[in-house]
């Protein structure tokens, strides 16, 4: 009993440190990638004792700056709600990490430990629910600041996230029809089997349209450019106009955390999670013959590595998208959501159903 609690606690700590470290690195990646895309070098001056390492200390400098800024609460605003909003936003983003599998089980002694914080059989639904609860942070933050523009930003954010939530959910129905379970580790395991004997059965191969819709709707969920209507720096500044210091930092970090989680979700649902093609618990078995037998620890390390690499790739892609596109206008955003993504996901569902019946 005690051992179980200890294991869960260690898993939570490891998971959160993984997420926060990646968030810090992602802020650095964001600066550097935007710079490289625009033929610049990017922030490289932050140094410790003259050591620069490509500006990798910049996130630390940013964090120190955020922490020592004045924490301003505007007069006549609701102090309690104003304080709690960024925490809500951050909490509901981080909690989704609980359901994401980093790898298969490992066995230490007689204990079987899943490399996943909680193994729940409603994993997918849980993640979608938590993502939608995240809007409360935005709308409460917008309302509690006692400012017209933050309220506008909050309402825009709510409208946007609710509309894209539908597309996000519908795009997954096709997957749910194919996969045997809603538990994410089961989904990943299922993706290890082969199609026609040689193509790995990854979600993106079975559900290309669903993947496409999910990626776009996921980008909209992160509230970053092309879909940063809730912020809209040029017109309304957005729901965190009245926030400063680390509370603003939390809102900012929520965006980055969401980028990581959307990447992790895309990886888990559509790109085989921790699966490496043709890697089975005892080593590689290629369909064209030939085996490489590996120690089970090496297999586990390879799997966790593969998960991280895929997540890193999607983080890269999302940051690239953020630095490529101009912002959607509000009506275009709604059109894209309601008139393109949702009908497309219906087509996807019907198509998947037909194929399932016929095959």
């Amino acid at each position: 009993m005690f051992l179980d609690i200890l294991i869960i606690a260690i898993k939570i700590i490891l998971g959160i440190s993984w997420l926060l470290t990646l968030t810090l690195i992602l802020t650095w990646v964001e600066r550097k990638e935007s710079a490289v895309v625009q033929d610049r070098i990017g922030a490289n001056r932050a140094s410790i004792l003259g050591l620069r390492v490509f500006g990798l200390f910049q996130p630390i400098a940013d964090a120190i700056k955020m922490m020592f800024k004045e924490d301003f609460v505007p007069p006549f605003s609701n102090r309690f709600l104003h304080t709690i909003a960024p925490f809500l936003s951050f909490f509901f983003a981080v909690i989704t990490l609980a359901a994401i599998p980093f790898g298969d089980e490992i066995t230490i002694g007689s204990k079987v430990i899943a490399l996943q914080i909680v193994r729940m059989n409603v994993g997918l639904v849980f993640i979608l629910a938590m993502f939608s609860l995240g809007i409360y942070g935005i709308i409460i933050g917008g309302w509690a600041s006692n400012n017209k523009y933050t309220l506008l930003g909050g309402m825009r954010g709510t409208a946007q996230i609710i509309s894209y939530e539908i597309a996000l959910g519908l795009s997954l129905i096709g997957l749910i029809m194919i996969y045997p379970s809603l538990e994410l580790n089961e989904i990943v395991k299922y993706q290890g089997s082969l199609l026609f004997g040689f193509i790995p059965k990854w979600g993106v191969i079975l559900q290309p349209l669903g993947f496409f819709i999910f990626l776009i709707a996921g980008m909209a969920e992160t509230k970053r450019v092309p879909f940063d209507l809730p912020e809209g720096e040029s017109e309304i500044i957005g729901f965190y106009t009245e926030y400063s210091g680390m509370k603003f930092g939390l809102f900012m970090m929520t965006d980055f955390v969401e980028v990581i989680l959307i990447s992790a979700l895309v990886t888990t649902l559509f790109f085989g999670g921790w699966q490496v093609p043709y890697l089975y618990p005892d080593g590689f078995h290629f369909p064209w013959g030939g085996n490489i037998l590996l120690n089970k620890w090496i297999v586990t390390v390879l799997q966790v590595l593969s998960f991280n690499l895929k997540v890193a790739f999607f983080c890269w892609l999302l940051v690239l998208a953020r630095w490529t596109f101009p912002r959607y206008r509000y009506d275009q955003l709604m059109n894209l959501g309601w008139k393109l993504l949702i009908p497309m996901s219906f087509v996807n569902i019907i198509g998947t159903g037909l194929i399932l019946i016929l095959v």
Partner: protein
Amino acid sequence: MIKSLVFLLEFLKGLWITAKHFWINIFFNFLKLIGFNIRDRGSVTIQYPEEKKEIARRHRSLHRILTREDGSPRCVACMLCMTVCPSECIYIEAEEDPNPEIQKRPSKFIIDLSRCCFCGFCVEACPEDALRMDTNIVELGEYNREKLIYDLNRLVRISK
């Protein structure tokens, strides 16, 4: 719906362009890192305090006052530069020069750089070619406004 689809196509094209930029630049940056500098690609950044861009020959930089062979300033206190200066930042007081050929010389010649807009009119106006802006000194920032007021001595000393 068709319009949105066309948008999406254009978006994919845009992604392709930025991704191309990214990988080409990363490749050349990496080559630079390991010591190859094949082509001047990768980034256009000039890392300012360490690397400086060459200043163009006609660039208008800090003023200087030229001197004659004997070391006295060439200025004859004709007040033309003071008159033409649009920012009114030149102040001159004249006195008699012992040399009857020259007649006048400045006893005070002050340029207040905190007001100067570096238009170069004073250089154009000067009949004696006493004033020039070719020192190539552009880092003129000071913490103190008094330090931006250049007097005759300072202006002469710059040219040496």
